[in-house]
């Protein structure tokens, strides 16, 4: 027990709190571990702090997680790369704890340190650590070992490499499914470091084992490895080794496995080359598009554009397009919705003629879908079609779809369509917009749901930006200002909000002549909520209008509001006055 010098007091407290009873304080200390290390110096960090942390392994998971993260960037504090190995023991213990996220972080930190370590240090320290973990008594250690092989392997000697490969192979057949899952997850990373000769033999046999696992969860992860492995192999080997596996997987009994295949399949097309793609992968993909399980069709439909981009357009028209037609009237709304979110991207792939002939009817039928998400997804990607065939062909069907969505009884649907209005406006052009959609935009300002009114105000601002102030002066401002006389104060508040958003876009002149008078009138409103919102709006206008206007109009209004009987109104009025003063001072 000793008292420390005064300047050291904070750091002393920080160190003591490594063992405080309050978890927040321990966390705080661990987060400042580098400060502690620097205060102790490199040598004492190596000899005292690191061993101390190694023993600190029964702390709460939150603390361990923080420790695992900090240690990953600790090399500078222990004396540089030559001492990096002293960091391994505490991380090794963290690799064995029960909480998955702590182990994952510890593995990540070990990889980070390992990739900086000198080659012979890796052999002396890192590889033995990997071997120890792989032989661990509890599955947690073996689980973590799987994620370290790709760092350990490159610097190992021939003999060690053989051993490491055989250890990994054992991990792929571990009793515990958790370990096999970790082995399957990391196989791709490990394979990338293995020499081509062994890749074809050792790694492929491990891969085959995993693809035949009893546990669906292991096979699922093996599917994910397919694409990674395929890219490592020569295309010929890929055809002989990976292709049969993935084709098998595409007919697996478990829909979850087929679901994974549907998600991954397009990645393999490049690895195997065009011919096997045509003969094997396209039929497999077509099967998945017609799968019995809706979830699989959802995944397959979601990849239809990516898949077609890789394919010869002719093949796409011949084989994929018929399936797409079927999917557009699928019994599951989620399948149609997934299709709608990507199908517009097929237009550039297929070209103008095929799009008009084949895709357009599908677009149109999806635009009339009974399920709003499907229609929304089509509308959200409108720009992609516009580039290929122009929008005129669609506009006839588009309008009813938009109007129906705009009046949907679910406010989330209305909200979604509002977000797309600026996009639609830019695609459809001013003329079309004025005729058909202008009224809708005003109607939303008086929606029953706040979020819609809020989005509507924002929408007006974006439209004004899109079409310019002159257009807005004609088509937005008069209608908006009319509504300030709405008998319901919530709608008046929406208008104030819209004014504050529009003012920066409209510029000083219009703001002074049109908007400001309305705001000033509103300051006489009988509802305090309106009045303090007036104060807020005025505050936002200070920067837009001339200083003379501020002094002549805004300040007197605010001074009046600052005398208001309502405390909130006075508060915001004073805030606004203060910011006027600040602007004055700085100018």
């Amino acid at each position, binding site marked *: 027990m000793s008292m420390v010098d005064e300047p050291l007091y904070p750091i002393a407290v920080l160190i003591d709190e490594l063992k405080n009873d309050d978890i*927040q304080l321990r966390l705080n200390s661990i987060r400042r571990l580098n400060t502690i290390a620097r205060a102790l110096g490199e040598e004492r960090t190596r000899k005292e702090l690191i061993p101390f942390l190694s023993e600190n392994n029964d702390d709460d998971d939150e603390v361990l997680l923080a420790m695992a993260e900090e240690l990953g960037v600790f090399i500078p504090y222990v004396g540089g790369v030559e001492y990096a190995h002293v960091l391994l023991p505490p991380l090794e213990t963290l690799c064995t704890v029960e909480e998955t996220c702590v182990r994952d972080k510890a593995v990540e930190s070990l990889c980070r340190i390992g990739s900086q370590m000198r080659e012979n240090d890796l052999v002396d320290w890192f590889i033995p650590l990997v071997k120890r973990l792989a032989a661990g008594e509890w599955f947690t250690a073996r689980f973590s070992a799987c994620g370290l092989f790709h760092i350990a392997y490159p610097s190992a000697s021939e003999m060690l490499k053989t051993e490491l490969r055989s250890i990994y192979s054992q991990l792929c057949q571990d009793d515990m499914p958790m370990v096999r899952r970790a082995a399957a997850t990391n196989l791709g990373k490990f394979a990338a470091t293995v020499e081509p000769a062994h890749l074809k033999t050792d790694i492929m046999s491990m891969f085959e084992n995993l693809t035949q696992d009893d546990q669906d969860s292991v096979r699922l992860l093996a599917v994910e490895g397919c694409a990674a492995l395929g890219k490592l192999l020569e295309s010929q080997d890929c055809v002989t080794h990976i292709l049969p596996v993935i084709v098998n997987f595409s007919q697996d009994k478990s829909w979850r496995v087929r679901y994974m295949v549907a998600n991954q399949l397009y990645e393999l097309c490049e690895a195997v080359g065009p011919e096997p793609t045509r003969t094997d992968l396209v039929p497999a993909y077509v099967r998945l598009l017609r799968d019995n399980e809706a979830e699989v069709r959802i995944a397959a439909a979601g990849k239809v554009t990516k898949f077609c981009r890789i394919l010869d357009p002719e093949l796409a028209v011949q084989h994929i397009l018929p399936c797409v037609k079927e999917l557009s009237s699928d019994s599951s709304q989620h399948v149609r919705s997934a299709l709608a979110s990507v199908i517009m991207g097929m237009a550039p792939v297929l070209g103008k003629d095929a799009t008009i002939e084949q895709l357009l009817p599908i677009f149109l039928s999806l635009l009339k879908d009974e399920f709003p998400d499907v229609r929304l997804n089509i509308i959200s990607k409108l720009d992609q079609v516009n580039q290929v065939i122009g929008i005129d062909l669609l506009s006839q069907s588009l309008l009813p779809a938009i109007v129906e969505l705009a009046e949907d009884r679910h406010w989330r649907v209305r909200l979604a369509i509002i977000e797309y209005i600026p996009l639609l406006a830019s695609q459809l052009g001013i003329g079309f917009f004025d005729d058909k959609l202008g009224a809708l935009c005003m109607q939303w300002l008086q929606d029953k749901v706040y979020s819609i009114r809020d989005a509507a105000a924002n929408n007006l601002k974006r439209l004004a930006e899109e079409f310019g102030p002159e257009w807005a002066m004609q088509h937005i401002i008069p209608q908006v200002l009319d509504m300030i006389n709405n008998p319901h104060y919530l709608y008046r508040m929406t208008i104030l909000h819209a004014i504050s958003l529009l003012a920066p876009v409209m510029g000083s002149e219009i703001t002074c002549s049109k908007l400001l008078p309305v705001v000033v009138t509103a300051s006489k409103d009988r509802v305090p909520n309106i009045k303090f919102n007036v104060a807020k709006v005025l505050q936002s206008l200070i920067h837009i209008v001339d200083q003379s206007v501020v002094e002549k109009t805004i300040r007197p209004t605010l001074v009046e509001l600052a005398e208001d009987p309502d405390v909130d109104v006075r508060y915001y009025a004073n805030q606004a006055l203060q910011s006027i003063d600040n602007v004055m001072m700085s100018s």
Partner: protein
Amino acid sequence: MNGGDGGEVAAAPSAGPPPPLEWKFSQVFGERTAGEEVQEVDIISAIEFDKIGDHLATGDRGGRVVLFERTDTKEHGGSRRDLERMDYPVSRHPEFRYKTEFQSHEPEFDYLKSLEIEEKINKIRWCQTANGALFLLSTNDKTIKFWKVQEKKVKKISEMNIDPSKAVGNCSASSSSVSSSPKPYLANGGYPDRSYSCLSNDVTFPPGGIPSLRLPVVTSTETSLVARCRRVYAHAHDYHINSISNNSDGETFISADDLRINLWNLEISNQSFNIVDVKPANMEDLTEVITSAEFHPTHCNMLGYSSSKGSIRLIDLRQSALCDSHSKLFEEQEAPGSRSFFTEIIASISDIKFAKDGRYILSRDYMTLKLWDINMDSGPVATLQVHEYLRPKLCDLYENDSIFDKFECCLSGDGLRVATGSYSNLFRVFGCTTGSTEATTLEASKNPMRRQVQTPSRPSRSLSSSLTRVVRRGSESPGVDANGNSYDFTTKLLHLAWHPTENSIACAAANSLYMYYA
């Protein structure tokens, strides 16, 4: 004896049934003294052994979980890896001692539905152990919780930098400066710059460090058990949860309520997938509810659930995402002419359990235990009468609601025997192999054989003779009293569990946990 035995036995009747077991009293926890009144909250509502039988957990109506650990195998030499594989020989009968307990659930109130949620533990399931820490799932009617029970060092810190006795004010000051208190603490007038902001990374320290600083030293080596709730899986059930069950993949589990079964990942508590939904569009069309559900012990894709109409459905998770259509259905046709008002009520299955090897399913309805071969859906391979003598009294049982009691059932680790509870704190053990006549009635007391009927019952004539493999017996066993008058319907033994590797049974009689071995 390994898990495969069950299969062989039924397939090879020539092997002959094993001799009946002699049950002996082993232990009791929470024994009631004469005249002591049982507190409602102390009544045990769930019992579960872990996979290797080294631990036993009980849950009670007060929302507590109590853990017991096995004492007779502590010094076995097998490595932990073997432990994970769950097979090692033991010589003595299992003995347990109290390990720890914790409050798993508290009573709650659902304000949206104006519903009280009891804290009563409905089910407990053990999960994979790791590093000596125990993991288990416990559930009440609505909320499932994932618990980790672990030994922690009791910290005793010496070698502080700041003498705690001299620097009480300072310590607390510095603590508050980081925790929440926004204003600087200057009580001692000492260290106005003590906040951590002065410790920013650009502070320079001498190259060799500061020698006067030292790390705290932990001296005590004592440990204590700490239970921490790691995850809460809530708000996924509209009805009362009746079962939870772990998958063999070690990462998922299911929870079942009256109308739905949900699939969870242990690591993700904010979403679950609905895999079975039997709720009809119109609740007036409701004729059947889910009463219990369990995963197959080895096939990750298979699960069974039972219904109030007496059927068991096996579903295959590989087939489709929403498994409303079952892949196999097990139910017994009621013999014609024997229908009565109570037929449907007593057909309701209260519990199902897979045998360890996964080939057989044991089910319990009000009157019988039935053993089903999952490869044979024409009828059960054995039907065991548990309390046939109650049949004339069904009317009374209906009047006092006893007919709705949900008795659990269990199988021995070798699959040769089954057990289930009854009234008057009795439970019954049957041999379930072909030709076995073993049918023992035991009382949950220190003298279990007190009421034992010595004459082994012989197989009775099967009601439906077409099912040649069906064995019915025990029906003539009168228990204690042929009239059944002395049966006490208030003392019912609902919960019991068979040790996974040995002939040892733990059962709950009100608030007491009795253990027997043979």
